[in-house]
């Protein structure tokens, strides 16, 4: 069946480096994509979103890229900080339904 997935379950980066977290989706009907951050013991926190009519969107230190040709989504975090350590989920949404990927655990080394 169609699903949202992630290429890497874990990612470790040095403080100050840039981080790239990838996500693959397979539902061509998805028209809205969201990245969430989840810290231990907390609910997911919205980071950034993008609609299917865009291919790039920038926020504060974060950028989301959408490649509809290969059904790929990525989250770039600039100058990664220790506070960025968490599990990151991508999610796709269509027709009042939403699916999350399994998540990537980002660890930032000081």
């Amino acid at each position: 069946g169609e699903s949202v997935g992630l290429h890497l379950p874990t990612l470790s980066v040095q403080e100050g480096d840039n981080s790239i977290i990838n996500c693959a989706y397979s539902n061509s009907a998805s028209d809205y994509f969201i990245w969430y951050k989840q810290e231990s013991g907390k609910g997911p926190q919205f980071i950034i979103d993008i609609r299917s009519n865009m291919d790039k969107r920038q926020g504060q230190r974060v950028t989301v890229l959408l490649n509809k040709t290969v059904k790929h989504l990525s989250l770039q975090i600039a100058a990664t900080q220790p506070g960025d350590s968490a599990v990151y989920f991508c999610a796709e949404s269509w027709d009042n339904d939403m699916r999350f990927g399994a998540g990537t655990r980002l660890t930032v080394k000081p």
Partner: protein
Amino acid sequence: DAGVTQSPTHLIKTRGQQVTLRCSPISGHKSVSWYQQVLGQGPQFIFQYYEKEERGRGNFPDRFSARQFPNYSSELNVNALLLGDSALYLCASSPSSLIGGTEAFFGQGTRLTVV
């Protein structure tokens, strides 16, 4: 202003029992969505309610049901509990009918353990 509040925070139930989880949305938010997050996995969408009507439903059995009250709070009910129902149950509220997005805020969840 309080965020999304869920109760109880932790719960232990026996197989076959029934459970009710509660969610109070942020004041002014009319939409509540429920998610199940099994340990080590991403959340799975269960239901969305907007203005007291069901607007979306994920792929969950009929043992799962929900409702939304006039004050926009919501309850999630699970009947005939199975061991596999053990998970963190998350509630998210939003002012609009859009699932997720910038206006959706999650609670800290209810940790359900079925033994």
